């Protein structure tokens, strides 16, 4: 029996050993290929990513406007930024192991962890002090990084359907950018000295980076825009992926920057490069290298020198006008609709953004951050009258040789409304007498246009104005652009307004709900001059855009162009005193406009209860809503009771019985024919639009500026006048 039992035991143990052999045959025989390939993969290093350089932005002649230059940044591990305790615990254990205490007990680890916590707090103080930000701002910066990563995580988890760990949670995020070469050496040394362990275990590092330098400066600040931290949406839309199937090294990582305004934003795809990647192997395989691709260069149609010259002219004009807080000038090439200059005044110095942003934001009178040329909308006033005339004549609403006698009043029995305009210092309106189309434009006669508006009706007029580009995106490659307002009856009904004949009359003279941006005004002028509507272009090398010839007979165009010639060049024209350009070869034709408007609110009083007492706080704001938002941002714990406008601009009145108005002037430059008059068979070269906020009369305030711009182009930039 013992023999038998020994045999049983022996058989059990032998079969155990045999089972192992079977398993080894499976692993080392059948699956060897798989495991051998896996072992080769293990020898690959973690990929190193090579940063690319963002493309330059240059003007039409190749002058540099924005470019990257080498800089450094201070990166801090996300787990430190988010103050994760587990990370400190692991770091403490790593440090102890590294310094020869592999079997450290919990108390020792906790002690080191406590010291690391102290180091972390010291690091925040250190960064705040060195980078010149306040500790509160730095704290907010950290919160923002955390929020961004959490939002990305949320989105990714939503699509994946399960919990994920983002690369962003395991990497360094910059807390201080734009460190200079001299600073970075000192910074590195000081970090090594004060935060030795954090540096050693790569919780903090000085990393190479690039810094965007805007050599275009103040004059192009709005146009070029700026870079900012990438938004979670962008990262989710196009994440950085390094997997064989769906590799996208050009995608965004959570600490990247992206263009958030101006050309930087609109040309983001072109300007942004693609990262490179290096994988090295620990055996004798060659290093795998994917070179980074730098961003492409983007060429603007703007001429830097022209832009500077015009900016200077605007600055002078604004300085001379006490009521004018700012203005805008746009110059277009009529044939190509390339934007030659896009001036918005006042602007800001882009290099000082982080420094002065709060101050600029609080300047509710000058609004230096407002991109007036494409973002501000104003009632067009009389500059829309040529379009009204074209609409009425070409649509057949009135016969082509329509005439009307202006007596100063549309309805002689109603003398306080529907009057013609009156110049400064005159108490009764003009009575222009019998006018045809040309004369109506020359005198900018309201009465003539009222009759046309009445005949066309709101929709009849709007249908034509739409063809002129009113209320239509101008085509410019800028995210800030607003497209103006074309108050069609649909639009009006959405606002609970009625498309009454009175509105049609008002729109015919460019008042009421209708609004244009200065850029749209310039393109409107180009359409007057060429008879063709064409979207404008800011970036060279884009797709050609759709354009159309307006269905208008040449004789109608001729009459409005003659009218615009007369405005500036004939006795009795509205701007002849201010805008006339005495030049042997070129003539400036134009149209003035004075768009009546209300004053701006520049500050509001917020009333609130504190400690049982009513208190008042005055803060800069352009609207009551803005004031409410700003107040709750500043004092989230207080609840405003009442907010009232406290200060206005302009401070004074516009004169007896008048309203303030924005001063428009649009004009185009044309070569003189043999008889000294414009060569009508030739396409004019450049269209100019000028707007001065609260400038009063368009002819008086903006006319001279337009003339000076025209003169500058003729004298200094003759290349824009040649075909």
């Amino acid at each position, binding site marked *: 029996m013992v023999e038998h039992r020994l045999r049983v035991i022996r058989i059990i*143990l032998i079969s155990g050993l045999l*089972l*192992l052999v079977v398993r*080894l045959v499976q*692993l*080392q025989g059948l699956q*060897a290929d798989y495991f051998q390939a896996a072992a080769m993969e293990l020898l690959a290093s973690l990929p190193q990513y090579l940063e690319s350089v963002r493309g330059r932005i240059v003007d039409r002649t190749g002058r540099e406007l924005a470019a990257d230059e080498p800089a450094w940044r201070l990166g801090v591990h996300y787990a430190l930024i988010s103050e994760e305790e587990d990370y400190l615990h692991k770091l403490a254990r790593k440090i102890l192991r590294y310094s020869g205490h592999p079997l450290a007990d919990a108390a020792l680890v906790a002690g080191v962890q406590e010291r690391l916590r102290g180091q972390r707090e010291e690091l925040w103080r250190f960064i705040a002090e060195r980078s010149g930000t306040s500790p509160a701002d730095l704290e907010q910066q950290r919160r923002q990084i955390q929020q961004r990563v959490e939002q990305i995580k949320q989105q990714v988890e939503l699509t994946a359907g399960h919990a994920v760990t983002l690369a962003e949670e395991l990497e360094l995020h910059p807390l201080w950018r734009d460190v200079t070469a001299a600073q970075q050496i000192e910074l590195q040394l000081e970090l090594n000295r004060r935060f030795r362990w954090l540096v050693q275990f790569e919780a903090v590092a000085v990393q190479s980076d690039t810094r965007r330098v805007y050599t275009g400066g103040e004059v192009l600040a709005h146009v070029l825009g700026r870079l900012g931290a990438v938004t979670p949406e962008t990262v989710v839309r196009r994440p950085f992926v390094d997997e064989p199937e769906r590799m996208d090294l050009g995608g965004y990582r959570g600490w990247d920057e992206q263009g958030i305004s101006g050309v930087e934003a609109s040309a983001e795809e072109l300007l942004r490069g693609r990262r490179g990647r290096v994988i090295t192997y620990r055996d004798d395989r060659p290093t795998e290298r994917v070179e980074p691709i730098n961003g492409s260069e983007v060429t603007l149609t703007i001429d830097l020198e022209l832009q500077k010259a015009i900016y200077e002219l605007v600055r002078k004009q604004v300085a001379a006008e006490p009521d004018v807080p700012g203005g805008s000038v746009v110059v277009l090439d009529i044939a190509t609709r390339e934007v030659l200059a896009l001036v918005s005044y006042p602007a800001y110095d882009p290099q000082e953004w982080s420094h002065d942003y709060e101050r600029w934001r609080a300047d509710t009178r000058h609004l230096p951050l407002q991109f007036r040329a494409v973002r501000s909308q104003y009632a067009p006033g009389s500059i829309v009258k040529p379009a009204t005339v074209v609409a009425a004549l070409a649509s057949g609403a009135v016969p082509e040789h329509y005439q009307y006698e202006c007596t100063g009043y549309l309805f002689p029995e109603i003398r306080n409304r529907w009057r013609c305009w009156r110049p400064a210092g005159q108490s009764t309106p003009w009575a222009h007498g019998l006018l045809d189309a040309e004369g109506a434009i020359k005198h900018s006669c309201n009465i003539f246009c009222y009759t046309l508006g009445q005949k066309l009706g709101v929709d009849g007029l709007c249908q034509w104005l739409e063809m002129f580009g009113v209320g239509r995106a101008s085509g410019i490659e800028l995210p800030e652009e607003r497209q103006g307002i074309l108050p069609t009856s649909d639009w009006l009904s959405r606002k609970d307004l009625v498309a009454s004949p009175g509105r049609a009359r008002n729109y015919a003279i460019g008042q009421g709900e209708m609004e244009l941006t200065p850029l749209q005004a310039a393109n409107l002028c180009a359409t007057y001059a060429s008879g063709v509507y064409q979207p404008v272009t800011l970036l060279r090398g884009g797709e050609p855009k759709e354009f159309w010839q307006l269905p208008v007979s040449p004789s109608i165009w001729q009459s409005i162009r003659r009218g615009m010639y007369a405005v500036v060049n004939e006795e009795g024209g509205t701007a002849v005193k201010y805008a006339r350009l005495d030049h042997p070869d070129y003539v400036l034709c134009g149209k003035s406009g004075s768009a009546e408007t209300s004053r701006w609110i520049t500050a509001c009083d917020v009333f609130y209860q504190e400690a049982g007492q009513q208190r008042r706080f005055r803060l800069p704001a352009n609207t009551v809503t803005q004031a409410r938002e700003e107040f709750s941002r500043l004092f989230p714990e207080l609840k405003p009771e009442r907010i009232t406008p406290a200060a206005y601009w302009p401070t004074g009145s516009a004169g007896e019985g008048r309203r303030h108005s924005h001063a428009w002037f649009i004009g185009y430059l044309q070569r003189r024919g043999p008889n000294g008059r414009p060569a009508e068979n030739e396409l004019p070269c450049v269209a100019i639009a000028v707007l001065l906020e609260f400038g009063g009369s368009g002819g008086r305030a903006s006319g001279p500026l337009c003339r000076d711009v025209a003169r500058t182009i003729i004298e200094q930039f003759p290349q824009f006048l040649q075909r």
Partner: protein
Amino acid sequence: MWRNVPMASWAILAATLLLSVIGVLTVWAAEGQTHVPPHAALRQSGYVAAGLVALVLMARVGYERWGQVCGMLYVVSVLLLVPLVLARLVGGLPLINRINGTYRWIDLPGINLQPAEIMKVVWVLTLAWLLQRATRLKELTGLFLPMMLTALPMGLILLQPDLGTVLLMIPVWFMMAYLAGARSRHLLLLIITGLAIVPFFWFRMEPYQRMRVVGLVLQDEQLRARVIAEPEKYRWLCDEESARQWESGAGFQLLRSKGALGNGGLTGQGWGAGTYVQHNFLTFKHNDFIFSIIGEQWGLLGCVVVIGCYLVILLAGMDLAGRCLDPFGRLVAAGLTAIFVFQALFNIGMTTGLTPAKGMTLPLVSYGGSSMIASYALLGLLISVGRRPKPTLARPVRQIMEMPHVRLG
């Protein structure tokens, strides 16, 4: 004296030395990497030399004399285990350090003493002595005393905690009881009772403890996919998160270990060559997971040689047991052989993903003084069972023992 040594003992010695050489060479190849102590191969050679001395010593003294003092040895070994348990309760004592969350070693000058290793040998000796004297083995209640004898050291070892050694002792206890003459149906009853209370413990275990066992099952990628797809259905097994993170969590070490074995293929990458040998991808490669890099260096061939060595020791040990006329010696030989081979089985099973991962060395091969000397001592004791000169009896011992009126012990 050499003439008294049977062939089987020489075979054991030969296999022992071959395994030691393979061990030293592999430790040498792994030298200079993280966690591998400096001059490990040299030290290991020293342990082998010390082991040989222990082997000769144990063999010369002989199992009979050890058996006479086994009661005292048992008490001393149990007393050696007590400070470890105390250390765990109070969180460390002088000379006793916490290593990987356990208290298993007493840090004596020159050597790290692992009392469980001593206990293993002493326990087999004592259990054999007790079984040989037990009179009521054929009754279920007669198994109570041998069980108690085992439960005391088992409990203490379990508290260190060292589940591996405990898992080793359980099958060996059954084998020895079986061999000593306990009824099969009683043993089966015990096994079935044991299995029946497993689910009770299963649902009281912490998830990470469960993962040690479940981790094995999760090797199957398709099963992992099913757990992730239908987490509700597999809740009893493991949660979705552990299945998802198996590759970087519970299964990480196993993946690496299998990777090393597979990378060896049929004939291996050669001594000191191979991804896992040369780089720090596999932890414990010089001790608990040494078999993986043996497999990488010498492939299936080398693995079969190692397993062959254990087979030789198994067959020779059982041969010694079979030839031994003294029932005590027979139980000692079979018990020692079983516990030795079981340890090898568990260790290789762990590196190949057949048994749960527990800290357990590959006897004679893994780096470590305590384990090495204990293994040599165990084999010395085993060899001594063969040393007994054949007594001259009128008829073959086998027939005497099977006579109905002869009562053993």
